[in-house]
């Protein structure tokens, strides 16, 4: 009897000791172990925001992607058959797949990444049906660029995701707005039994916060057309590269920003990484005669000239260091200021610009936005080179008046010409609709643009009249830039170009044409630049026709009717 009680007491004290151990010593970890049994934790990936054009058509979008992974312990037995099956169904390499399926000392090998989910599920299910187990799928979001090279220079692209699944942005807006687009991943935790969720089980969900969509000001179809026209133009002129900018005159929104050559955002690894940029913003060049429109409009605004101001223009102008000449040989001409612009006379421009007080031209050019970044949102933008202080010598002053010895980027120049189109008010160019925050914390977009008056409305109007003479078949140098039925104002540019190798003027040129239409009620400003075309090309003959095509397409696409007025006939000679 006593022995029996003793036995019971001993057994009970063992239980008690175990109870104390479970409940008093570290009860938390046991509770966690119990909870983890059957608990499933799932990451809810945040959808990356779309990048769309101004009409909402996607330029970059995210779809539910999936990665297919293999467990080599299971797959090595039937590796050859499975590799053949996978090569047939997926875009994968046979040898690589076979090696992955046979990998030793591994339980996890990537077979294919960023496959559309429906396809991946089908492939894995079919593999299972054919008797090849050992394949699994995991979430692997996929970014697609449905338009290939259209606006690739602006949109950029994502590389292979990081190990934790987060996006790895490599270029363009994707890179600059990475945080804005990314969003925050969520998490779901619930208890599973036999493949089904246990009702009344623990169930907590932290929803994912999706990334913001980014709407650009780009018009996809116009962008496509601009890229193709630019390609045709550059290839036709055997040029090295080219840029085309289409801007809404009233709002400064960039409707198209085309670079040639560019790359395919859907297949970027096929291209050299030096193309992963928008050269319209990153590359500087000397604008040449297009800049004369800025010089002469400033003169008119300062009250130092009118379109009818008479100038005697000699064939050569001997100044301090070297003679200044025109692109064509001539004796002394009697040109009005309008004639100087229409015929693009360097000598005439220098003579007219002599009226400026020191520093006055620089002030105007700064107000036009030269020498300052446009900040439209793409990375690596250059601010251009506008000499200052002692670097602005008399010789430099002469050359700057006709567009040499200063450097710009294409968007700067388009925005400056657009100020003339917009009645003398410069609007900041923009590439993003509304407002969006860059990764560096700056908020940009059409909601943040500022306006400032550069020249008077009257000066802008008179400059427009002079620029209209440029496309006149008799008076001007660029009749091929005209758009049938519309009044067009523009300016050609043929600049000496600094070569890459010698860092000096190597005889190559940059030809360009900037203009706006309808001249008396501007809606679009178009700027076309071609670097290093075949010798003998000019802004009017190479960039002019491209300008005409782009302008005509834009006017038609947006249903802008002609104003029905006749082009002006200001005299170009006296």
């Amino acid at each position, binding site marked *: 009897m006593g022995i029996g009680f003793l036995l019971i007491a001993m057994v009970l004290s063992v239980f008690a000791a175990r109870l104390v151990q479970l409940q008093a010593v570290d009860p938390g970890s046991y509770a966690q172990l119990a909870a983890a049994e059957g608990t499933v934790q799932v990451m809810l990936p945040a959808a990356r925001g779309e990048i769309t054009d101004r009409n909402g058509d996607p330029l970059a979008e995210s779809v539910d992607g999936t990665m297919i992974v293999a467990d080599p312990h299971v797959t090595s037995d039937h590796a050859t058959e499975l590799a053949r099956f996978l090569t047939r169904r997926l875009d994968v390499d046979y040898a690589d797949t076979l090696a992955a399926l046979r990998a030793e000392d591994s339980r996890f090998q990537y077979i294919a990444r960023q496959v559309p989910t*429906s396809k991946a599920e089908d492939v894995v299910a079919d593999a299972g049906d054919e008797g090849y187990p050992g394949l699994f799928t995991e979430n692997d979001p996929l970014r697609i660029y449905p*338009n290939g090279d259209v606006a690739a220079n602006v949109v950029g692209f994502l590389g292979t995701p990081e190990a934790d699944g987060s996006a790895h942005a490599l270029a363009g807006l994707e890179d600059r707005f990475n945080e804005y687009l990314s969003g925050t991943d969520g998490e779901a935790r619930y208890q599973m039994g036999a493949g089904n969720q246990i009702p009344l089980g623990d169930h907590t969900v932290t929803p994912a916060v999706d990334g913001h969509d980014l709407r650009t000001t780009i018009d996809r179809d116009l962008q496509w057309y601009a890229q193709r026209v630019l390609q*045709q133009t550059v290839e036709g002129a055997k040029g090295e590269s080219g840029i085309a900018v289409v801007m809404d005159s009233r709002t400064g929104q960039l409707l198209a920003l085309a670079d040639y050559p560019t790359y395919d955002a859907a297949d970027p690894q*096929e291209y050299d990484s030096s193309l992963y940029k928008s050269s319209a913003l990153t590359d500087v060049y000397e604008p040449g005669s297009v800049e004369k429109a800025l010089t002469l409009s400033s003169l008119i605004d300062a009250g130092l000239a009118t379109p009818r101001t008479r100038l005697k223009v000699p064939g050569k102008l001997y100044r301090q260091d070297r003679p200044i000449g025109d692109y064509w040989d001539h004796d002394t001409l009697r040109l009005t200021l309008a004639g100087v612009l229409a015929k693009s006379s360097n000598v005439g421009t220098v003579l007219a610009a002599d009226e400026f007080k020191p520093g006055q031209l620089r002030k105007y050019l700064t107000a036009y936005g030269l020498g300052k970044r446009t900040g439209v949102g793409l990375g690596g933008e250059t601010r251009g080179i506008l000499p200052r202080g002692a670097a602005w010598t008399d010789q430099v002053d002469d050359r700057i008046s006709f567009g040499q010895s200063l450097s710009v980027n294409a968007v700067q120049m388009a925005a400056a010409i657009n100020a003339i189109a917009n009645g003398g008010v410069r609007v900041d160019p923009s590439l993003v609709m509304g407002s969006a925050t860059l990764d560096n914390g700056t908020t940009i977009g059409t909601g943040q643009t500022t306006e400032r008056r550069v020249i008077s409305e009257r000066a802008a109007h008179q400059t427009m009249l002079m620029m209209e003479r440029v496309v006149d078949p008799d008076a001007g140098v660029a009749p091929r830039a005209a758009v049938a039925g519309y009044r067009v104002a523009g300016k050609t540019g043929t600049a000496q170009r600094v070569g890459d190798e010698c860092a000096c003027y190597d005889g190559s040129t940059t030809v360009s044409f900037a203009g706006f239409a309808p001249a008396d009620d501007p809606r679009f400003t178009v700027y076309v630049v071609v670097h290093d075309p075949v010798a003998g090309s000019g802004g009017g003959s190479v960039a002019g026709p491209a300008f005409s095509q782009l302008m005509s397409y834009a006017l038609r696409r947006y249903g802008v009717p002609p104003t029905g007025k006749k082009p002006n006939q200001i005299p170009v000679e006296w």
Partner: protein
Amino acid sequence: MSSTAPQVRSRLPRVAPRTAQAAVQRARLTVVPRGRTRAPRVPFVTLVSLILLGGVIGLLLFNTSMQQASFQATALERQASDLGARQEALEMDLQALRDPARIARAAQRQGMVIPTSAGILDLGTGAISGAAEPAAGAPLPLAPPAAQRPSFLDPAPVRVRVPAAVGSSGGSTATGNDQGNRGRNGAASPTR
């Protein structure tokens, strides 16, 4: 005054002797005989059993239906995600069809060109403005230029000059083709 009290006392039994007797009779307590009648137990037990059984079965059914619903929820969720993936795939197809490059290719195959001018008809006044002309000019290049691969993906061919093998077969009768073959063999295995 002293005569009034006996009068009242004598009058009382006279007024209600019978009712008083009845009252007394009623007031006398007697022992009630022990009740031998028992309520039947069976209905009660049945009722309780039924309630218990009903509760258990109900709970079981409820649980089962919840499980069933959970199975269904899981299946439906899977179906929803499948359909979502299908929708995304279809939207991708749609985007591919709306690609301006594809539309332009299709249009150009039918002989269309993008015009450079347009006439505009004002529906209000019926006035025609603009200068519409037949579209002309070279068709646009529709394919983007081919990728220029980075130099490391497209290395220059390696040329190895091999000294002419002395006493090779054929001698003067060797054709150009033979020599070419020999050159390639030599280049492929310069260490031989």
